[in-house]
């Protein structure tokens, strides 16, 4: 009698645990959206060749009819398309010209100031040498 009670209690506990596991599994499975297996496979293998081909086709469809004619016309008339390097070269040459202009003007101002100071010093030296002078 006692053994039978123990067995039924254990059995009841196991049933509860099993149903809890089942509920847990069901809850976890409900979190997955439809097509999970396909998505997992796609993520594992990466894009298939057919996807790549379809992708390239989207790009190819973006060209309007008469593309070749437009290219040939543009190649005949358009000036050369400046590259990124040529943009940099142009910016660098403009910067170099500006810098040289600034340095040139600065050097001229320095030279003029030097000449003025030298002349002033010479005038002072002459005045110091000549005791009769009242320039000082």
């Amino acid at each position, binding site marked *: 009698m006692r053994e039978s009670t123990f067995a039924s209690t254990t059995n009841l506990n196991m049933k509860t645990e099993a149903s809890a596991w089942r509920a847990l599994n069901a809850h976890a499975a409900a979190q997955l959206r439809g097509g999970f297996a396909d*998505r997992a496979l*796609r993520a594992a293998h990466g*894009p298939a*060749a057919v996807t790549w081909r379809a*992708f390239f086709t*989207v*790009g190819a469809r973006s*060209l309007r009819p008469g593309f070749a004619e437009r290219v040939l016309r*543009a190649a005949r008339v358009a000036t050369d398309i400046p590259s*990124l390097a040529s943009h940099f070269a142009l910016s660098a040459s403009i910067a170099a010209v500006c810098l040289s202009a600034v340095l040139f003007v600065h050097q001229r101002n320095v030279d003029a100031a030097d000449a003025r100071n030298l002349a002033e010093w010479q005038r002072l030296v002459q005045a110091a040498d000549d005791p009769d002078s009242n320039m000082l």
Partner: protein
Amino acid sequence: MESTSTTALANLVRRAQKGEESALRELIISYQHRIAGFVYAMTGRSDYVEDLAQQVFIKMVRAIDRLQAPAQFESWLFRLARNTCIDQLRRQKLRRIFLPFGEEHENIPEPPGAVDSEELDALRHALAQLRPQDRALLALVQEGRSHAEIAETLNTSVAAVKARLHRAREHLREHYQPEHEN
């Protein structure tokens, strides 16, 4: 069969090098869809495709007489396409520094119907996460370029191409999540 088509292509390129307009037109028509697909893989924007493809072919028309080996026309053309796209992406990046609102304008989503399916959208999204150089590598492989040809295009060794390709594929797989689960 393949050598016949290679010879035919080399002859066509030689005619184009002499300035024959019909040969140039034939080259453009033969390659326009492949170059457009490549440009789309590089930029992820269908509204850039026409402009960039046009730039590529204008460069081709202007420089074809300097191509030494007509048999290597395809590798040369895809190198032009790769460099044009990378230049464009660099320009965009520079513009973003000076024009902070530029990015918002550039990131306007593709109009409905431009992308056919969830998978294509996922591929576009995954490619956008890669460096342009890696995108170019993957697109060149999909274009059927051999490792040796890619190595020649990128001025590097075949071993380096294989290593970079392996890394690029790993990155693509990491980001390739249809329905943008991230």
